[in-house]
């Protein structure tokens, strides 16, 4: 297709990596011809944290707090996939009640994620108000989560074989109330947004992708369902207990951004339906399968071999991943979240590959924005729903050598700290005695450092004959309280003055008994 060029050269614009309004870090290098986008190249990696490499050195329980930081909008899904993998590897049965609780938490998390998607998406398009409304509902979800798990966002709630703790008394009723309230909330969003002509102008027909192409590009989740493919892992894989509930896959046919928006809104309604059915049907029983805590492998090492002597970080007896591999997946609100897990007959996995939905959904961005206007990039980007921090791998993180190793004999840090004391005050009190104020700390530090000069060190830093200098040393080090008094007085502030007086009194109260003791011993010794 021939584009008539409006300008002679194409302009290359850099968007990012910083973006306002909860977008995370993504750098887009956009090639523009006037206002039409010719090409767009996303550059990633700004928030690469090394999750996969870290996973190779953590047991599953140790790794759970990390996984909630992948996709922080919907933290329950990341935890669920982290425990699902080892559960499938170990053939661990999850009790019914735990399965129902998990489904309720997952669907609440899905609602929370879709809500938080709508806010910034509408804000990018130009409507700022939904941004506040979603947080109103999301706070209610946070409250529910906090009551059950203790944390609003990074729950660390799922365990291999169930959940960490049972639901508190009265939680089910609160959750039912939330469902009823939320249905009215969705109606409000529909009234505000869905038939709004400005919104439709911005969003209809933007970023169209057909079904075949969507499959080829590996899209998943609402992106795929908006293009006419009825593919939902909850129905395809029959995991957890989704089969017991009566719900439908939400999908649309057009494949543009409006379709993706509609899919997500109706998914929220379906989630409420699932939650209500689960709350009504939740059985009693255990909430965690404690059988997995029976370890039958003898772990005592031989006396005096390496394992016995090397006293360092050893994990406590924990679930051991057998030497198998598998690919576990689930339907996260962004798409298909998967884990390819290779176990190594130890607590740590050999390879933990995360298949992040946002990363793979992002690949299609250059294709989608061709021939669109510049302003449509934000629409398309918004509707892809990518959580930029989702998961990454890292090599060298910020590491520096510890303070006790810096400099010759490790004294550099201490010297720097002392020198800092002389220069650190860059605000001088205008009405105080500036000379005293600046000199005070110097006197305190210098006298202490000077007192080292009279300590008779012999070769190899051994104290030599004590005859000389002991009183000189006491004399020099007693100048330090004068410095404290000077800085306290010069600050023109009665509290600082009191503090200085107190510090000086403290130092003197050490010096006087010290001097008296030394005096008596020296008098005895010099006879």
């Amino acid at each position, binding site marked *: 297709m021939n584009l008539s060029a409006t300008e002679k050269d194409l302009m290359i614009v850099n968007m990012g990596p910083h973006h306002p309004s909860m977008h995370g870090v993504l750098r887009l290098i956009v090639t523009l011809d006037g206002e039409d986008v010719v090409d767009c190249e996303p550059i990633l990696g700004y928030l690469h944290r090394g999750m996969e490499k870290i996973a190779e050195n953590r047991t599953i329980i140790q790794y759970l707090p990390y996984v909630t930081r992948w996709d922080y909008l919907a933290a329950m899904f990341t935890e669920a996939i982290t425990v699902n993998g080892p559960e499938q590897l170990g053939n661990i049965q999850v009790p019914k009640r735990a399965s129902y609780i998990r489904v309720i938490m997952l669907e609440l998390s899905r609602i929370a994620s879709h809500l938080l998607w709508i806010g910034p998406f509408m804000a990018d398009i130009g409507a700022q108000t939904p941004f506040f409304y979603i947080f109103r509902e999301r706070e209610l979800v946070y409250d529910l989560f906090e009551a059950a798990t203790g944390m609003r966002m990074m729950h660390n709630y799922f365990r291999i074989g169930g959940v960490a703790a049972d639901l508190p008394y009265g939680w089910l009723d609160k959750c039912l109330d939330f469902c009823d309230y939320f249905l009215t909330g969705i109606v409000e969003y529909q009234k505000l947004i869905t038939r709004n002509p400005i919104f439709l102008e911005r969003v209809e027909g933007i970023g169209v992708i057909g079904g075949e192409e969507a499959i080829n590009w590996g899209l998943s989740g609402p992106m795929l369902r908006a293009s006419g493919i009825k593919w939902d892992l909850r129905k395809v894989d029959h995991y957890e207990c989704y089969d017991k509930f009566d719900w439908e896959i939400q999908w649309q046919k057009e494949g543009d951004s409006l379709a993706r928006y509609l899919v997500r809104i109706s998914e929220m309604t379906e989630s409420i339906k699932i939650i209500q059915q689960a709350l009504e049907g939740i059985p009693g029983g255990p909430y965690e399968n404690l059988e997995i805590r029976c370890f039958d492998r003898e772990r005592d090492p031989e006396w005096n071999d390496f394992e016995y002597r090397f006293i360092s970080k050893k994990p406590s007896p924990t679930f051991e991943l057998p030497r198998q591999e598998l*690919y576990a997946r689930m339907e996260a609100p962004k798409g298909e979240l998967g884990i390819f897990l290779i176990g190594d007959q130890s607590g740590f996995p050999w390879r933990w590959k995360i298949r992040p939905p946002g990363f793979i959904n992002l690949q299609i961005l250059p294709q989608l924005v061709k021939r669109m206007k510049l302003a449509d990039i934000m629409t398309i980007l918004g509707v892809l729903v990518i959580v930029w921090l989702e998961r990454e791998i890292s090599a060298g993180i910020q590491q520096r050598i510890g303070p006790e190793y810096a400099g010759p004999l490790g004294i550099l840090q201490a010297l720097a700290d002392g020198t800092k004391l002389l220069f650190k005050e860059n605000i001088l009190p205008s009405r105080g005695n500036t000379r005293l104020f600046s000199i005070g700390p110097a006197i305190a530090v210098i006298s202490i450092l000077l007192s080292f000069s009279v300590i008779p060190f012999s070769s190899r830093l051994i104290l030599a004959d004590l005859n000389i200098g002991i009183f000189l040393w006491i004399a020099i080090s007693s100048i330090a309280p004068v410095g404290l008094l000077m800085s306290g007085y010069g600050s023109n502030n009665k509290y600082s003055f009191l503090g200085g007086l107190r510090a000086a009194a403290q130092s003197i109260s050490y010096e006087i008994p010290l001097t008296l003791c030394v005096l008596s011993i020296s008098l005895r010794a010099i006879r």
Partner: protein
Amino acid sequence: MRNIYLRKMTNKKEKCGRDKKMQGRLSVWLVKHGLVHRSLGFDYQGIETLQIKPEDWHSIAVILYVYSYNYLRSQCAYDVAPGGLLASVYHLTRIEYGVDQPEEVCIKVIAPRSNPRIPSVFWVWKSMDFQERESYDMLGISYENHPRLKRILMPESWIGWPLRKDYIAPNFYEIQDAH
């Protein structure tokens, strides 16, 4: 045809005895058409696993696409043993209308560590774009014919392949688990 590559993982197939492998349906079909591959039995969920040589991969990829495996869900790479071979793993499945528990297959392409070059299948399944770049970035497997094979997560000037087992993180003054 016998291959000499090491296999680290023991699969369920071990139960069937060493010489008689349980061949999955796809493996049987491939053998029928005379395509060189090696069946690795099944992984823990019962998904068929095949091992393919790098030279044959691009033709077998097209054949699988025609066989209607149209959805490549995830591509992963790992090292089979520290200092050993590198494997690139592809999980394929089929999305069709009204399908329930569709067929899946897992393909492993194994390359030597000294010269890891595997043909890129971006032109068959476009979802390989970022995923192959990530395997290149993290493990150093170079994919031929990939349109933009450059580092995606690490900065462009980084030296080394971070996710290999023998990688040592520079300027890191703690005990590292490099094999």
